[in-house]
């Protein structure tokens, strides 16, 4: 579409590459290189890895991480898929509530979920104390069972959302055809429906696997010393007896390896198994026996209620009088008073940094998405892949990489707010890029060509036609980036310094210093702040949909 544009889009490509190289690829490469570095900075081939795989203290972390992630993925798949099928195919009451509630469960950051279970079932937990009055006791929430519970409750909505969307794209005629050819229902599901939704199932499994591998806060809060890759990495890096960046980098490299391998395996599988489906009449709701209907209803509401427990607990406990980790019946604003009194700075930091990061994400994301969708070339495929790295790489690894690279000349960012902003920005850039690329693939390029043919130059066409059409994707990308940035803990905990603590860091330290009241109050603010933009987005998009967009 003309040569004049090449300059502008060429510089966008350059800018995007520079950004990704400086803030993601280079730090990660440094982590990889550091893992091969011994004392006095000389190169060692496998000294760190040898140490890692011969000491139980180290290698147990990778065993624990893989074991937990595998079980959590399995659990989330089971719960999420069953719920998706129950809602899509059976006449359950209150389906809108079930869908909304499953979405809400995604809102609170996982470490807050973990903390809420401690509030309920921890040693001083509300439920435990109530039960002990009757002489009962519950199995402890601490340890790997607790982590597994938190993981499944936290991440099954990924699977639920993806499988639900996939089920909506299966046409009823597919099932009808299989049944009319004499295939029994069970076989029909296995041979006709499962293959079509398989890419979404594996995509959900991948999301759960990568997120649980990367989760730092949950095992920290209820692991009670259980070592996983991210917690051990954090421990090795920030150590009162002097950090060991080489070992931390070795752990980080293993995390990178495991997650990118999972990502590539899923991509490869989904790429080979993706079908183009045309859906006119989605799968219909099936009649079923009253008993099965009751069982499914109990299951669905049970799952959703458990999923809502964390945020409800947090909200309620934030209004309870507390002393240390002990909460008393009654209600009070004491916790809120003390946070606004003691740590108002953390709240301001969080909102300002998150807002800045989201604005930058959207600005660069929209431009990059346009490049990726409209100028497919090898260069842009490479750019796409390197931006998507941020999806796969745990925050702890990004944090360590940024510190190692930017705590020495020529650029020193450690100790400033900029390094937090950089991490937030680069880690959540994929959200607007993904949402906008997907949208642009729906927008016919001829709409833009029509505008150019009517005399509006290409860049003004981009502003006048493309941007307004991308608006829903921009909004939802921004809301997702906002939601995930505002509760970010795993890199913040490494990157913050002095006055630049964020709310997530403050919650974390409050929990560890047994100030449960202030932790709950901060967490409540965080959950509400994460929720509002997403809610508004749905409202706005809903109205637009009503207008016929």
């Amino acid at each position, binding site marked *: 579409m003309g040569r004049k544009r090449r300059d502008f889009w060429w510089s966008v490509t350059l800018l995007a590459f520079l950004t990704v190289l400086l803030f993601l690829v280079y730090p990660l490469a440094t982590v990889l290189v550091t893992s091969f570095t011994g004392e006095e900075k000389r190169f060692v081939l496998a000294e760190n890895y040898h140490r890692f795989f011969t000491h139980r203290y180290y290698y147990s972390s990778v065993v624990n991480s893989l074991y937990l992630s595998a079980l959590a993925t399995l659990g989330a798949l089971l719960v999420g898929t069953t719920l998706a099928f129950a809602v899509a195919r059976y006449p359950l009451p209150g389906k809108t509530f079930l869908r909304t509630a499953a979405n809400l469960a995604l809102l609170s950051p996982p470490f807050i979920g973990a903390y809420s279970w401690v509030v309920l079932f921890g040693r001083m937990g509300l439920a435990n104390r109530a039960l002990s009055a009757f002489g009962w006791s519950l199995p402890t929430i601490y340890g790997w069972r607790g982590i597994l519970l938190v993981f499944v409750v936290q991440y099954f909505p990924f699977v639920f959302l993806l499988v639900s969307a996939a089920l909506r794209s299966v046409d009823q005629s597919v099932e009808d055809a299989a049944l009319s050819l004499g295939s029994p229902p069970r076989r029909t599901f296995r041979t006709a429906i499962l293959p079509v939704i398989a890419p979404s199932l594996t995509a959900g499994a991948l999301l759960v696997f990568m997120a649980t591998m990367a989760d730092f806060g949950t095992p920290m809060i209820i692991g009670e010393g259980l070592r996983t890759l991210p917690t051990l990495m954090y421990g090795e890096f920030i150590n009162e007896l002097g950090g060991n960046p080489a070992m931390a980098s070795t752990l980080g490299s293993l995390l990178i390896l495991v997650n990118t391998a999972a990502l590539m395996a899923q991509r490869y599988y989904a790429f080979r198994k993706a079908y183009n489906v045309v859906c006119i009449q989605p799968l219909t709701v099936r009649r079923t026996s009253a008993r099965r209907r009751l069982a499914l209803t109990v299951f669905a509401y049970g799952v959703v209620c458990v999923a809502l427990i964390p945020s409800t607990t947090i909200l309620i406990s934030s209004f309870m009088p507390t002393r240390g980790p002990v909460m008393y019946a009654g209600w009070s604003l004491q916790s809120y008073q003390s946070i606004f009194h003691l740590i108002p700075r953390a709240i301001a930091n969080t909102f300002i940094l998150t807002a800045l990061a989201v604005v930058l994400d959207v600005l660069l994301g929209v431009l990059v998405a346009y490049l990726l969708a409209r100028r497919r070339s090898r260069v842009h495929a490479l750019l796409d892949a390197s931006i998507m790295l941020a999806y796969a790489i745990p925050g702890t690894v990004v944090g360590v990489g940024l510190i190692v690279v930017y705590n020495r000349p020529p650029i020193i960012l450690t100790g400033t707010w900029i390094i937090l902003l950089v991490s937030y920005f680069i880690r959540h850039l994929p959200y607007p890029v993904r949402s906008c690329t997907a949208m642009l693939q729906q927008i016919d390029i*001829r*709409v833009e060509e*029509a505008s*150019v043919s009517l005399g509006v130059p290409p860049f003004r066409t981009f502003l006048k*036609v493309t941007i307004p059409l991308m608006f829903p994707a921009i909004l939802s990308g921004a809301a997702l980036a906002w939601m995930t940035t505002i509760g970010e803990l795993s890199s913040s905990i490494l990157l913050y310094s002095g006055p630049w603590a964020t709310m997530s860091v403050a919650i974390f330290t409050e929990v560890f210093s047994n100030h449960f009241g202030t932790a709950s109050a901060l967490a409540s603010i965080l959950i509400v702040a994460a929720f509002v933009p997403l809610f508004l987005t749905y409202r706005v998009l809903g109205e637009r949909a009503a207008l016929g967009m």
Partner: protein
Amino acid sequence: MTRVRVEGIVKRFGDTPAIEGVSLDVRPGEFFTLVGPSGCGKTTLLRIIAGLLDQDAGRVVPSYLRNIGVVFQNYAIFPHLTVGENIAYGLKARRVPPDRIATKVAEAARLVQLEGLLDRMPAQLSGGQQQRVVLARALVIEPRLLLMDEPLSNLDAKLRVQIRSLIRALQRTLRITTIYVTHDQEEALAISDTIAVMDRGRILQVGKPWELYLRPGTRFVADFIGTMNVLHGKVEGPGPGPGALTVVTDFGERWQVQAAGSPGQPISLGIRPESLQLVPGTNAVEAWNSLKGTVTEVVYLGAVVRYQVKVREDLLVTAEIHNPDFGAICGVGDRLTLWFAAARAIPMPGETGPA
């Protein structure tokens, strides 16, 4: 009214040639159609003329037309703008004063019969209405050239005919030079002043609709524009009358046709299905210009009956009988004789006999 000349256009996509040296001359006010199977390069050529795509070689004269109206296959309507805003879009880009815009938009809406729908959003319109919005949007800027890329392909059969007539009527009234792309030969015949048949990046033949139908230059054109039966034989000698030949086949059939050729030379003849007449039975009176065969398929279409007649193992002939009499319909397996008038046999160049 603008004359458009296309000279030696070449375009490749990577290693794949899309257009291999195409030249055209579109006269002022002409309705010019590019027709061909999908992938023949017709849309690519149109996009080059529109300036949406750069050619590798050749030129379009005038080289940079500012005022081109383009109508795209799938409408390319702006979904976020109302009907009125869609139509006004190009005028605003040209900084036409608002009151002039209002008058022009109203006038354009009247032309395409969209009055009263100016405040609607595109999603509230039917396919035919959307196509009319796009037409109005392209016409309102008073283009010197109108380019249309399969504008009717997303419409159902009835609407297609309706909008086709609307487009043709508007083009005649406004006298805009128009280049129209379609893969539908019937549409091309119905709407065009001049048709260019394209295949594999080349133009095979340019002419009036009836020239292409009655005197196709190649076997491809003959098959693409309508249906053509091709018969092979040898020139026996001059026939009765000026410019006539006698042709004989290996199977003893003897035909008289209007063609040139010397004795012994192989010759191919094209005969349109509707040029064949049908006589029940095989003891036909007329021995010349006839073929005997067995009916293998009958398609009854009301005004027309289409027969597939097997003359011999490697010769299946299509015949169409218009306005058939009640009781005169043959059935599958019937033996019959096909007959054609000498003037209706078209000599097919470049055909040297059965492969």
